[in-house]
């Protein structure tokens, strides 16, 4: 608060030159999205605090306005021609981050829609703070993808983590368990991350991505500390993107957390963390490319195998999707092993595709078998097609896309990732990935089998209300349309994949 007021004062009164500490001139437009989100968050918080009986619609409205504003602000940055780095060179302004911001905002919006519905059904499940927290988390994410300074990356990471810990714990008993696991492991891993930041600083005497790359490129410093930093940062990022073996938290958290929250975090966290990872590794550690690509390689192999294999044995949809998200992290890493523009584009495409599918999948999951004790267990999906064909159809689209079956966007995503890895000559990796995707396909197939080929048993009923199904439909259509006309997306990515440094 204080800090905010402080800089508000600075906004009002431009800093005087003979101030004891000269403040650099400020350009606010690039951080307008974050500001919008935070303001909306604070407003929401105040509303929750002071409105006696706060209604969700108001919360929803506030959140939507904030998200919309943020999105708008981000889009207006698309053709930014000002200084590339602002806020004392701690924030980069480029289309890379703009694209990410837009995606994150959209994901958040969908999450809010689902959450509003969920909460409407079970008032106890999600409380008013959900919206501010999502907004702050989004702010952290948009910040992390734009950060040009490792410390900002770290802070943003913490913002989104804290918010997510709380969101995870917002549900019932299981969500508490999820929260505590997520928190303890998260804190643990962020310690590694911070250690990495420290090592990076030790190696280069700075934490600014641009100066790090300059320093490393200049070879003035010993690479060994930088390598150490790289290793530790990998651990931190690996945890966030849930790449094996840093993925252990994922299944439990995804299963335990409230579904809308999972929908949000599964997509948004991956996008944010991966975009940040790309910036850090492809820019800051670019001189060490030959050193970190093998690591990504190894993580990719482990992730796809673990994700696919374990997904194939699950009996709970949310858990299965969790493992599949591990596998997908592996695929994305596979794309990054090529460490070139194509790889980055492929990874970006994959991330966006993945967020569409996974948000949709979790959205549907939220609606299935709402009355039962174990809504997300496979049993609840038996005969879904007969019970409520609409949901079954949506789920099928998302699952097929996750499995990478044409003509869904999932296929195009896998294709571009694989081909980039292949062009880079990482053969064994591509082979492993392809085989893993077959196994993963089997995993998704098990759900489809239950939805279509089994008789519904018991008196399970699904929530087939319009709004969430509509949202799901939009996502499903996106999945297919992007699968048939990938240019719509790849064209944008083409122009967004240039990192400034």
């Amino acid at each position, binding site marked *: 608060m204080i800090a905010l007021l402080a800089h508000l004062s600075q906004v009002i009164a431009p800093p005087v030159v003979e101030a004891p500490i000269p403040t650099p001139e400020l350009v606010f437009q690039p951080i307008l999205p974050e500001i919008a989100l935070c303001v909306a968050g604070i407003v929401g918080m105040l509303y929750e605090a002071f409105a006696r009986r706060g209604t969700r619609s108001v919360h929803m409205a506030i959140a939507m306005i904030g998200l919309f504003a943020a999105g708008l602000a981000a889009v207006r940055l698309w053709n930014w021609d000002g200084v590339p780095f602002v806020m004392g060179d701690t924030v980069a302004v480029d289309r890379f981050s703009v694209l990410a911001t837009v995606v994150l905002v959209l994901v958040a919006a969908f999450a809010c829609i689902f959450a509003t519905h969920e909460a409407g059904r079970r008032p106890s499940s999600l409380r008013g703070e959900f919206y501010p927290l999502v907004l702050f988390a989004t702010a952290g994410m948009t910040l992390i993808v734009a950060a040009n300074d490792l410390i900002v990356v770290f802070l943003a990471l913490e913002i989104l983590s804290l918010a997510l810990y709380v969101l995870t714990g917002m549900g019932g008993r299981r969500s508490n368990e999820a929260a505590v696991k997520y928190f303890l492991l998260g804190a643990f891993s962020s310690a590694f991350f911070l250690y990495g930041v420290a090592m990076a600083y030790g190696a280069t005497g700075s934490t600014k991505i641009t100066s790090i790359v300059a320093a490393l490129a200049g070879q003035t410093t010993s690479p060994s500390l930088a390598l150490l930093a790289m290793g530790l940062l990998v651990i931190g990022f690996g945890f966030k993107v849930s790449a094996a073996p840093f993925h252990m938290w994922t299944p439990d958290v995804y299963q335990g957390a409230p579904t809308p929250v999972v929908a949000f975090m599964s997509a948004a966290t991956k996008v944010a963390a991966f975009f940040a990872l790309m910036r850090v590794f492809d820019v800051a550690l670019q001189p060490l490319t030959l050193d970190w690509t093998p690591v990504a390689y190894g993580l990719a192999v482990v992730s796809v195998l673990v994700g696919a294999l374990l997904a194939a044995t699950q009996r709970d949809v949310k858990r299965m999707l969790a493992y599949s998200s591990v596998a997908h992290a592996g695929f994305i890493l596979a794309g990054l092993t090529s460490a070139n523009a194509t790889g980055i584009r492929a990874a970006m495409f994959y991330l966006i595709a993945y967020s569409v599918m996974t948000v949709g999948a979790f959205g549907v999951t939220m609606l299935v078998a709402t009355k039962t004790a174990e809504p997300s267990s496979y049993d609840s999906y038996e005969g879904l097609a007969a019970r409520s064909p609409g949901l079954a159809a949506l789920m099928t689209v998302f699952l097929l896309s996750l499995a990478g079956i044409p003509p869904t966007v999932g296929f195009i995503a896998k294709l571009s990732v694989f081909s980039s890895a292949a062009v880079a000559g990482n053969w064994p990796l591509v082979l492993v990935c392809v085989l893993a995707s077959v196994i993963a396909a089997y995993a998704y197939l098990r759900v489809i089998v239950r939805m279509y080929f089994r008789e519904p048993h018991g008196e399970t009923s699904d929530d087939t209300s319009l709004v969430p199904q509509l949202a799901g439909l939009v996502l499903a259509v996106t999945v297919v349309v992007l699968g048939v006309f*990938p240019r719509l997306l790849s064209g944008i990515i083409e122009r967004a994949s240039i990192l400034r440094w």
Partner: protein
Amino acid sequence: MSEHLLSVVIFLPLLGVVGLLMGGRQVSDAGARWITMMATLATFAVSLTVLQRFVAADPGFQLVEQASWLPGIGLQYLVGIDGISLWLVLLTTFLFPISVLASWKVGTDVRRYMIAMLVLETAVLGSFLALDLIVFFIFFEAILVPMYLLIGGWGGERRVYAAVKFFVYTMAGSAFLLLAIIFLYAKASGVGAGTFDVRVLADTAATLPVETARWLFLAFFVAFAVKVPLFPLHTWLPDAHTEAPTAGSVLLAGVLLKVGAYGLIRFNMALFPEASKHFAMAVSVLAVIGIVYGAICALSQRDVKRLVAYSSVSHLGFVVLGLFAFTEQAVTGGVLQMVNHGLATGALFLLVGMIYERTHTRELDEMGGLAGVMPWLLGFFLFAVFASVGLPGLNGFIGEFLVIVGTFAVSHWLAVCAASAIVLGAIYLLWSYQRVAFGPLRDEHRGLPDVSIREVALLAPVLALLLAFGVYPKALTTAIDPATKQVVERVAPDHATSVLPAGTEQAANTGGGG
């Protein structure tokens, strides 16, 4: 329309899907049937215009459509048709209305069933027409889903097992395909602009080191061998066939298996001629094993559908044998055999389905004497049986004969072994026919109705073609020949592209009929 003819053919069925979806729950079952029927018939009509605009003499691709799709990786929408794909496309568009008619009796989730059918048609047509490897792969993979739903949703007792087996087995195969495609692409982008255009990649592949090309060949081969299916990768087929609904079996045998064989000739041979020659003997041996093995397995089956399924294994062995003999006669025979097998086995499955609808059993032991109660149905059945036994004058014969003749030039012994299957084929098919049609009639089968008008309507065209293509196969070969000639000359420029001994061309041309 005209310049996008092929796209129209491919995507017309989807129009029906749109219709069914738009209609939503309001569409009655009957309505769904009719919409689907119309869509498939329209597709057939359009494909006929393709036939009419097709220039038989031109060996290259015709009616090509090209559009950049995903420039980032040089992916483009590229379709075209040549003599090889022409008849397969027509076979597809022809069999689909018939299958729809055959599934008129389907009562559960008619809409979903029909949607699956239409999607399937688009996928199959697409894979026959695609000239861009990825576009092909997309359609190739897209086949899986609707077929999977058809088997798993409307199949027999062990349908789920069969469906999953079918899906995973085929997908595992195509994984290698994708891998190889990507590798090829990587190499191509190393040379020039990255592309998946078969015609371009063919040149790229030529620059590859021999070893690499052979590995790629194998990767492609596995995918297609699973689909064909070639011994020993065939075990998914009997299960799928047995459990699938009638229309499913018809399309599986009539069309889907052809995609594999088509892939072999269109991609394996076009892209890796050297490797194709290098592996030709091995593949041919596998094919012959498949021919004999399938026949022997068929001998021991008690379930009619399983029996026909194994006979498919045997017959498609002929196809592969022909393709890899690299003599013009054999390859043309192989392609011919694809079409003919599609028709003959399709007819068989239709008839088996009708018998099943009446007797509610597929067990040979539980039938017998049916020729007495339904003479016409069993008459048609016999007709189809003899067509696939390879009786001269019916379409099964020409293909087999050409394959054997063509293989003779390469290896006498392979040809002889393959020929032995002709006897076996006669044995198991006649044996099964005898057990279905002859002998004493079982009491529970008394008074079963003979063929209905609908059934005659859907059988007649197929049977007519069985006869027509047997009497005048030239109708097909004139279009097929130039294309295969090109393939053969590409693969084996040095090696005799025709079985004819040098100098006898003249005699051959003037001799006939004086």
